[in-house]
């Protein structure tokens, strides 16, 4: 199928993200990129685990972490992953408006998460847990901050796609772009599941 073809709900392919060679390449290339990202986060996690008890006299994980905020943030991000699934579901059904709506909700939830994270970080800094305080602090902020900057990038990415394509609707040129952005969003979500477990839960009980 051709990129610039005008499509209707009837002619829109079942897997629009892989209907063209460009789309297929993007799809595969992005999965591979996520493989590299996985190793990146694995390295950050490994370092965090090695340094998490080296507080250098600063506050420890047990003293810092507060379940309510972290739990709220987690719920927001997990839900945003679900809403992005709805968005892609509507993309596959060639329902551009509903796709935009669900991506919009995804962005709002993601922004909520990011807001909570920024609030959380400022609280920690007030409690004397600065980036320069200890090896624990450096590794904590780098791991969680790298995830946070991924969230910020993902938000801007999805927003850009939504605005850029607002008037022209779906075609085989932009369907892979939306799909890949949603993959990225899921990846961020999966990483957060690990951060929630390894950093926060283990930090509060371990």
């Amino acid at each position, binding site marked *: 199928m051709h990129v610039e073809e005008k499509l209707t709900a009837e002619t829109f392919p079942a897997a629009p993200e892989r209907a063209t060679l460009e789309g297929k*390449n993007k799809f595969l*290339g992005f999965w*591979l990129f996520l493989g590299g*990202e996985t*190793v990146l986060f694995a390295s950050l996690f490994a*370092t965090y685990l090695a*340094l998490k008890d080296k507080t250098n006299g600063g506050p420890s994980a047990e003293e810092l972490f507060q379940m309510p905020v972290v739990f709220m943030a987690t719920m927001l991000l997990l839900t945003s992953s679900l809403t992005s699934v709805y968005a892609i579901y509507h993309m596959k059904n060639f329902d551009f408006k509903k796709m935009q709506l669900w991506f919009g909700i995804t962005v709002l939830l993601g922004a909520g998460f990011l807001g909570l994270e920024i609030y959380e970080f400022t609280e920690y800094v007030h409690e004397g847990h600065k980036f320069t305080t200890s*090896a624990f602090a*450096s590794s904590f902020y780098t791991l969680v901050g790298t995830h946070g900057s991924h969230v910020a990038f993902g938000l801007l990415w999805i927003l850009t796609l939504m605005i850029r394509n607002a008037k022209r609707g779906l075609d085989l040129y932009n369907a892979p772009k939306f799909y890949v952005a949603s993959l990225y969003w899921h990846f961020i979500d999966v990483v957060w599941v690990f951060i929630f477990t390894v950093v926060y839960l283990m930090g509060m009980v371990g």
Partner: protein
Amino acid sequence: MSTITRKKGVGAVLWDYLTTVDHKKIAHLYLIAGGLFFLLGGLEALFIRIQLAKPNNDFLVGGLYNEVLTMHGTTMIFLAAMPLLFAFMNAVVPLQIGARDVAFPYLNALGFWMFFFGGLFLNCSWFLGGAPDAGWTSYASLSLASKAHHGIDFYTLGLQISGFGTIMGAVNFLVTIINMRAPGMTFMRMPMFTWATFVTSALILFAFPPLTVGLIFMMMDRLFGGNFFNPAAGGNTIIWEHLFWIFGHPEVYILILPSFGIFSEIFATFSRKRLFGYSSMVFATVLIAFFGFMVWAHHMFTVGMGPVANAIFAVATMAIAVPTGVKIFNWLFTMWGGSIKFTTPMYYAVAFIPSFVMGGVTGVMLSAAAADYQYHDSYFVVAHFHYVIVGGVVFALLAGAHYWWPKMFGRMLNETLGKISFWLFFIGFHLTFFIQHFLGLTGMPRRVFTYLPNQGWETGNLVSTIGAFFMAAATVILLINIVITTAKGEKVAGDAWGDGRTLEWAIASPPPVYNFAQTPLVRGLDAFWIEKMEGKKELTPAEPLGDIHMPNSSFLPFVTAFGLFVAAFGFTYHNDAQWGLPVGILGLLITFGSMFLRSVIDDHGFHIHKEEVLELEKKEANA
């Protein structure tokens, strides 16, 4: 250069290269930039050898020696060997699989410019206070103590930028090879160089992120008050060593596997025989890559990981000798009974086998953890890795340059000069590094800028220095050869050597911008050879002649990479100067701004019409 560009002025050609997304031109860019860095790294090597030529020499003393030594290693690995291999991958892999371009032409250009600006940034350090001086491994205990100038910051930021480029290149090749193979080109019909590129790209994809993370930590510690490696605040310098070698050991396979691929092509071509044991070659390549991730700690035997860890890593390391041995025997059996033609590339290939095997044998010696306590940080290690990297990778680069030069530029390098340069290089190489084994065994430490007389090291070092000048002479002759060839070398046909086996030899030299007028149908391993054996001169087409879709050129990749270059300067100096932070942010804005533009501006490419293709093909046939 293609026939179209030759008619243009200098400015137009330059603009063409700054904006190109054509894999063949990007290959030229990698070759030129990698070649220049290779000369720079070579010059640094000569300076090292001059300093060590006699005891108590004062040519390069102390700190400056450390800088030259660090930059020699860093430049050769990151800015010379890898880009030069990328040059051949770009030039050849799409052709070998019958594709019109790579999967992501834009990303391909971006990858090149990232590498280029990263390398440029690293080398700017020479003029801005001092180069990095903690060795190419930049161990944290040394690099955190290096406070006299910003050298290490140039290392951490420069390598991060060029590392992004390398990862992009890897993803690109993986997708290209998986998705863009011509009809009939199954995985087990892919030429060995393409296989090697495929496996290498997978290694890059998984090995570079740990390096990136290590570099980020180092940057945080040095520029932003982080404490990852600062023991006083709970940090741990060993983390750097692990991250570095989790990257660093796969890195040597990232270098050697494509080199093996180049030699596999050359052995088959000039033995005029199918590669012996093709399937076992593929298997061995994959196995080496797999093992490559499980042996990093053999660089750290003396760190004190304990006997269990040392034993595991020692055994895993020794195991790599098995698939490597499989390859060596396959190459020998490829030559066995073949009708061998001794061309310059074949000289390098034949010389590679004993040279590389020697490096492999010392590798197994070093892998014995207990014995390694004796060899560690001595010239024995220096001799070992130069035997595998020069005897393996550099020989392959020189062989590949001679082998694919006619394909890339349409002219044959002079064979006589090629052979003279080979002999000088071969003799110089063994002269330089063989004796270093014995210098190491008698206790000469690596990385130290001088030694005292009467320790029994004078003769060995002098011999080694003389050998280095042989290699320098060989390089000069190669350059003369390139100049002569470019000026008046004989033009060659598509099948430049007459014995080409793989698809790249079936099309014009240099190939037209669209590579294949019709996508070929691949009917087996060595697809072009099969056609030739049936008396045909051309490939069997898999599609009728039609319009060809091509990607648009773009200046954005250059700008995107340039933004990071600017940002790196800003962040390097943000603690010293007011302008640091704004410049850093400006650079990031340039980069993210051009990424934004790339996202919002549609790029559908263009079509070369059937009639134009026919005309170009006709012109090529007449010429």
